[in-house]
């Protein structure tokens, strides 16, 4: 097989991709890309747990979309269609690994064992995120496109400087971004730095085919995974709707990174089934038949078909998974609805670690101004 090509099913884009589970739910024993063979060796329970993950993150996402439609969230960035890319890569991380997400990686967040409520303050508008990157091994959601890839690269340089690479229990870093981000200068700088400093990291690009309205053709003339060659590290394209391929390739790339083999670019070829965010109207820029063709490649239905064929799951199992996901979603809803609005004066907090006398003055003037209305009809 020629360099840069991969084994793939009939649904693969030109050049192929790594696929271990077809849209019909057939297991592919192994797939090869650039001379590297990928496979998975899951127990029955592990297959079932992956299915549970996929169903759960989709159900939570649907609840968030509903909350936005009901006016309870200011905006929501749905992951619908990208569950396999996120769950597979997220489960491929080891506990000591560090993730740098965009604002859509709710599925990765979930697989890190983080309470799914964590990013909802941001989308409800009661905070800007507000979590500790190091505590959760999951950096803050980054909204400016691509900026977090440089943060991930710097963090990975620090891992090397700390002597935490070169062993099987070393640390690795994964940076998430999308197809649109690959046009950003900062992402290209991150590729340069990661290559030059041999940073222990994985660039995980979810190519969901659209940057809001702009199709992939507006970002690139070549398949995105092939860009890695220009920066001096491997690039692999996977079927982004195949949770097994996502797990296998990301696990291998992260382990290479922690073992001192340097960075890898993974292009997860997938599709954003919903809108860019709840503020978007995708019917203006893509046709229904395209969306329909991707429905046939759904990440969840293929794993369900596999589990059914292998007799790893029956209706009672699938119903139980649906029910427990629903319970979690309804509990999430209740907790979102009970999120208190912040006290207005708290907007002055956490601007500087060492504070500022100037801000202290503004804070007290703000308090005095509001106090001046007390007792009035205003």
């Amino acid at each position, binding site marked *: 097989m020629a360099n840069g090509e991969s084994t793939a099913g009939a649904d693969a884009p030109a050049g192929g991709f790594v696929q271990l589970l077809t849209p019909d739910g057939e297991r592919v024993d192994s797939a090869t890309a650039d001379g590297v063979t990928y496979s998975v060796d899951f127990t029955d329970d592990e297959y079932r747990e992956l299915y549970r993950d996929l169903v759960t993150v989709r159900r939570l996402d649907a609840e968030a979309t509903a909350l936005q439609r009901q006016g309870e969230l200011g905006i929501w960035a749905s992951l619908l269609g990208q569950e396999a890319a996120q769950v597979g890569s997220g489960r491929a991380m080891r506990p000591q690994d560090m993730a*740098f997400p965009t604002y859509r990686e709710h599925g990765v967040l979930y697989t890190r064992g983080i309470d799914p409520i964590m990013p909802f303050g941001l989308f409800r508008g009661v*905070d*800007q*995120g*507000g*979590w*500790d*990157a*190091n*505590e959760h091994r999951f*950096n*803050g959601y*980054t909204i*400016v496109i691509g*900026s977090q*890839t*440089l*943060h*991930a*690269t*710097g*963090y*990975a*340089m*620090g*891992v090397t*400087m*700390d002597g935490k690479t070169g062993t099987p229990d070393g640390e690795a870093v994964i940076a998430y971004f999308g197809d649109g981000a690959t046009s950003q*200068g*900062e992402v290209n*700088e*991150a590729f*340069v*730095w990661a290559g*030059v400093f041999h940073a222990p990291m994985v660039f995980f690009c979810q190519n969901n085919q659209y940057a809001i309205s702009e199709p992939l053709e507006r970002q690139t003339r070549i398949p995105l995974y092939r860009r890695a060659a220009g920066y001096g590290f491997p690039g692999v394209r996977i079927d982004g709707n195949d949770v097994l391929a996502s797990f296998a390739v990301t696990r291998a790339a992260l382990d290479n990174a922690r073992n001192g083999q340097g960075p890898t670019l993974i292009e997860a070829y997938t599709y954003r089934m919903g809108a860019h965010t709840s503020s978007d109207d995708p019917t203006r820029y893509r046709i229904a038949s395209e969306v329909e063709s991707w429905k046939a490649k759904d990440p969840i239905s293929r794993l369900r078909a596999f589990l059914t064929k292998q007799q790893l799951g029956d209706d009672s199992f699938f119903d139980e998974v649906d029910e427990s996901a629903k319970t979690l979603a309804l509990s999430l809803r209740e907790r979102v609805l009970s999120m208190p609005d912040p006290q207005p004066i708290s907007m002055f*907090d*956490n*601007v*500087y*670690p*060492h504070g*500022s*006398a*100037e*801000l202290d003055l503004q804070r007290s003037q703000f308090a005095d101004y509001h106090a001046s209305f007390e007792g009035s009809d205003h």
Partner: protein
Amino acid sequence: MAETITIGKALNHGLRRSLEHDSKVVIMGEDVGKLGGVFRITDGLQKDFGEDRVIDTPLAEAGIVGTAVGLAIRGYRPVCEIQFDGFVFPAYNQIVAQVAKMYYRSMGKVRLPIVIRIPFGGGIGAVEHHSESPEAYFSHTPGLKVVTCSNPADAYSMIQQAIRSDDPIVFFEPKRRYWEKGEVDLDAELSGAYPLHEARVAREGTDATLIAYGPMVRTCLDAATAAAEDGRNLEVIDLRTLSPVDYDKIYASVRRTGRAVVVHEAPGNIGLGAELAARITEHCFYSLEAPVLRVTGYDIPYPAARVEEEYLPDLDRVLDAVDRSFGW
């Protein structure tokens, strides 16, 4: 032991002491290693502290600051060198959108103790992009602190204080004054140094207050010396900290003198001088004998080197403004 050294050498000593003091301090930038920086501010540091502590980076300013963010999340204290003022703009996004906001975004859970060193200002006969004064862009941005030094003693202590601070700090260095000498006590304890975020009266006076920072402090001190021959006793305030500004020292001075002239190289339009004039007017209104005047660069792109002396505020333009204040 006090030594007479240049501002450039004082910064070099301050960086060296910071590297010795804390193993998490790393210096990163273009040509900072073997070359010691184009102004030699990091001279000899890579040789003594190694390539992991003094890092020659790819030629990419967004990358320098963006990777510094990641290193800081990891627990490092990066000191970034931007080679020239006019080269900071590729990093502007990372500085303004990420460095300034990470602490706020994380509700105080993620600190970025990053120092971004930028040689700034004109007067060195350089080509375009090598003589600019972009301090207002950063001073306008909440979440950043901005400081600048005007003499070797401050250069030595302020760079160390900035590196030890957990606040992200943009540190402007007066490049045309790099070679000016002054006495520095290299053994002094940092705990006894003048506070980082306070202005200082550089020369006491009674008749008018000149407010300046960085390279213009020397210009104002020279103007004050010249004015003294004409019987005018000018006070000179070295701002040192541009964000936040230490307003109390300014107000106290202007209330005594009744006159204020703000001097900076950057264009005047919407610059620091405008903010200072507004604040002084608001807080010292009944003490003022004349409006607050400004002596600044003109509202043009930095001009060609052969005419830059006409662009830069100098002793005569400062004294002219003082005359106008007294003529009010």
